[in-house]
């Protein structure tokens, strides 16, 4: 990610140069790397502190689904269990070109958003939530383990 902001794969030419130290001034959150269960409530709190419109990029295999550490006892198996993710970047680690492609994909997605109608984005819809409940530390796991309104994995029917 830092290599993408440097000279060779310059991210500033896409208008995405400034990394803010505070979530209040940001409109994009890049979740890069493994999210532990101990850190997960903080990530959700930071997301809640961002003003609308806000977008999330899940960068790397660990942020998408837990990655190579999926069977770990302290690994959150994907940040999309608690917050809605707009773009996923696969890779371990993702190349700088992949991050640039993700920015371009996000910009295209924003261009195609409609202002009115059923398919308008979350920040223009008064019924959609803009803050999500922060998970608490339970005795054996986070409580709740996922947010069912956010995380809807596809159900695969297997034969035997």
């Amino acid at each position: 990610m830092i290599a993408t902001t440097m000279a060779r794969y310059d991210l500033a030419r896409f208008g995405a140069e400034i990394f803010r130290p505070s979530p209040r001034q940001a409109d994009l959150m890049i979740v890069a790397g493994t999210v532990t269960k101990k850190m997960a409530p903080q990530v959700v709190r930071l997301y809640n502190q961002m003003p609308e419109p806000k977008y999330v990029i899940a960068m790397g295999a660990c942020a998408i689904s837990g990655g190579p550490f999926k069977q770990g006892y302290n690994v959150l198996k994907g940040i999309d269990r608690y917050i809605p993710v707009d773009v996923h970047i696969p890779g371990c680690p993702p190349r700088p070109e992949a991050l640039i492609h993700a920015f371009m994909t996000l910009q295209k997605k924003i261009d195609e958003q409609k202002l009115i109608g059923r398919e308008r984005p979350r920040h223009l819809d008064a019924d959609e939530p803009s803050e999500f409940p922060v998970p608490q530390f339970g005795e054996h796991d986070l409580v709740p383990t996922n947010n069912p309104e956010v995380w809807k994995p596809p159900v695969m029917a297997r034969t035997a």
Partner: protein
Amino acid sequence: METLEQLKSRIESAVVGVRVEIIRNDSPSAQHSLLVDGEHAVAVGRFLRDDPQLRLDYCSNVTGVDWPDAEITEKVKVKKLVDGAEKEVEEVKKTRRAGCLEAVYHLYSMELKHGPVILRLRTGDRMDEAHLPSLTPVWRGCEFQEREVYDLYGIIFDGHPDLRRILMWDGFKDHPMRKDYVEPDDYEYEPTPHDEVLEKAKRHLQPEAKA
């Protein structure tokens, strides 16, 4: 540096009443360790740190081992009467090994540039008596590492200045690196599961497939 047998005899003469045992490690690394009993561990640690020939002043690693209750089966050659003639027969001998938790310390010397010397401390029990003396007063570097061993194995270090969980959160109840730790039943969506993940997926997906 001197051999482990010489070190053992010097520790026994320096610290009164200590019980030291050499545990051999027959792997290619050949890192044999000294098993020290809990009551004299701090005295042994101070001796190893202050002795002018050793000066083991750097504790590079503290880790834990979980020995569960196990039955060890060994094949032993025993002379027995078989068919009237005395022969050597292979018999299977079973011994019960009581479970315990163990803390392992790796010690190096920065001054004299030798090492490692490996210390093992065993607790009495896995349940109630999982107490060991903390070696943080001897080597400051043990502080965080002993917190990690407490967090993951459940060994309580008496005399540690700040014993609390370091990796898991404070309200967490289990000790994850123990052999009897059961992971929470977390539904992991996996497109091509294998082995144990496949078993988990079958348990979760079968009722949905039938519905």
